[in-house]
């Protein structure tokens, strides 16, 4: 589980999971810059993708986002997502 992973390992795991879960077939994990925006000009994900990531967090990491207002901050990039997972696994 994620509590045993370093930040870099978790980022790599998330990159693979997101490609698989969101069917981003044209991308390889290394194509996703962990600091680039996931939505908008970055990876260009849409609202359905955001819902898929919410399901991914709950299914793979047991983390439920209780406050939707937090979403924008959590989903800013792969790194912010990884940080959120690490923080909430510790708590």
């Amino acid at each position, binding site marked *: 589980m994620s509590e045993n992973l370093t930040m870099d390992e978790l980022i790599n795991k998330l990159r693979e999971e997101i490609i698989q879960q*969101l069917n981003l077939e044209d991308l390889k994990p290394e194509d996703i810059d962990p600091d680039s925006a996931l939505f908008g000009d970055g990876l260009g994900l849409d609202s359905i993708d955001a819902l898929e990531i919410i399901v991914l967090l709950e299914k793979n990491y047991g983390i439920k986002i209780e406050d939707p207002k937090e979403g924008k901050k959590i989903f800013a990039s792969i790194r912010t997502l990884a940080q959120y997972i690490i923080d909430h696994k510790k708590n």
Partner: protein
Amino acid sequence: MSLSITKYCLIKDYKVIVNGEIVFKPEETTNFETFIKEAYKNLGTPYPKFYKMDNLSKLAFVASEYALKNSGFIERYEKDKIAVVFGNSSSTLIADTEHQKTISDKNNYFPSPAVFVYTLPNILIGEICIKNKIFGENELFVSKEFDAELLVNEINSLNFLSKADAFIGGYAEASYNKNETLVFLIEKSDDGSSNFDVNNINNIFAEKYLDF
């Protein structure tokens, strides 16, 4: 003004046929998923959203892209004056089944939003409209089998009511044992001639050549 079929694409039996000519047929086909992905790549116009679609939308989308390619159809009309009319038989049976799998176990209950959005067959029309920024009328009919008469009547009605200047019509069917689609472009003919009728649509669907 009478209507004419100006171009069509039929995808059937792992072949892509445009105006009677086979334009794509893989040497080896293992399954539908591989075939439709190869047919999409053969278009040479990357559209990453393709990979997110269900089989039904992939079929209709790829056929519409082959039909529209180099046709100038989209550019000729106002985007709110193009109507899209489709038929289908099994609705979204595959997506429905996939969705059901994600909700059948109460202890492992993780419905996928990306699967759920494809549990309405008219989404296939939405995919074509999003790609081409079409805002006109759209209709989808679920009937027991391919029904050319229904499609011809509906398109003629929309034309009679001046709801659109041009039409994308078609039929798309994706089920466990059948994957086939026909997409045709319908425009008003200047010379009053018309080849848009039930007989011709049935002939095209039966892979009989239509002389333009």
